């Protein structure tokens, strides 16, 4: 007999159902083979890629499509590295012209040191891209009002950060993440800042629909091992959320009966 207790809802973004609530990036891997092995171990179906110039001298690696089969993974082009709405729209259109799909992970950075998003430019780009027929998944700050505006603009998912990109600090503001999830109808996917499996688990326990990560897996000593840990952590966090945690209290409550104890010598 199986132990199914609380069946989960399917994970649907923009009308498409995905098998995994973990979305992974493809950057910063030491080798392409290691990247593919880690992505497979993560169980992720949706995988982000960046748009960059072809290296005409071929001194660097070839394009990622030589390593990732679009039949096996849902490739999500991003606008990483863009600092203006205009650039983000340009990169999104280049990504779409590759012919895989009309989706984009929109990212408009506003500050080099923290890589925090420029939320005004993100909203401007999201509006333009939605009007142009894109299905936009927007990376944003953990700010409720921006998240609401991005949903109103027609984004198919809103993706607040846990903490800055590549920082590995975990969820710095779980209350804001929970409030964004409570208030939005579109999927809320926490994007950026997860460092290790416990961070991923805690993130999912906030009730969000999914997590997007890259560095936590790519920069682990053993990316395949960490990818497997992340898959389990995402599942554990999701199931814990669905199961409903006990109330926390700052006093001990015994787990064993207080009655039926033997007489002690002194009494």
């Amino acid at each position, binding site marked *: 007999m199986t132990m199914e207790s609380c069946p989960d809802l399917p994970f649907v973004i923009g009308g498409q159902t995905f098998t995994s609530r973990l979305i992974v*990036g*493809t*950057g*910063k*891997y030491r080798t392409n083979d290691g*990247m593919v092995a880690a992505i497979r171990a993560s169980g992720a179906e949706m995988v*982000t*890629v*960046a*748009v*960059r*110039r*072809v290296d*005409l001298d071929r001194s660097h*690696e070839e*394009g*990622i*499509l*030589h390593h990732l089969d679009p039949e096996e993974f849902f*490739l999500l*082009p*991003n606008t*990483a590295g863009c600092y203006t709405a205009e650039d983000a729209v*340009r990169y999104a*259109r*280049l*990504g779409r*012209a*590759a*012919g895989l799909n009309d989706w984009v992970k929109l990212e408009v950075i506003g500050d080099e040191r923290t890589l925090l998003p420029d939320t005004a430019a993100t909203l401007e780009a999201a509006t333009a891209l939605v009007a142009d027929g894109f299905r936009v998944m927007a990376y944003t700050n953990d700010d409720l009002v921006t998240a609401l505006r991005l949903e109103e603009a027609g984004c198919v998912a809103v993706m607040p950060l846990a903490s800055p*990109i590549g920082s590995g600090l975990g969820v710095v503001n779980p209350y804001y993440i929970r409030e964004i999830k409570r208030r939005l109808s579109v999927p809320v996917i926490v994007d*950026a800042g997860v460092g290790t499996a416990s961070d991923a688990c805690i993130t999912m326990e906030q009730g969000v629909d999914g997590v*997007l*990560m*890259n*560095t936590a897996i790519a920069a682990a000593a053993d990316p395949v091992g960490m990818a497997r840990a992340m898959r389990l952590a995402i599942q554990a966090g999701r199931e814990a959320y669905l199961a409903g945690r006990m109330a926390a209290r700052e006093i001990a409550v015994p787990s064993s009966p207080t009655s039926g104890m033997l007489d002690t010598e002194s009494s």
Partner: protein
Amino acid sequence: MTTPRSGSGNPGELVTIVLNGEVRSVGAGLTVAGLLRSLELHPGMVVVERNRAILPREALQATPVEEGDRIELVHFVGGG
């Protein structure tokens, strides 16, 4: 780099373009498809932007490379 010519254009004549940010001379009369061939790039693996406009794959054969063109050849790389 000098790219072998193809198509029309006077023999030996060159046009100067900016390709992925680098100034290059290519044979006059070259098409964008010919440019990709000369670089050993498969048209299905790259996206071409010419003078800030995306060039659909169907248009690669018919589009000439002209003097002063700013051409960007992009593809997908690893990213988060």
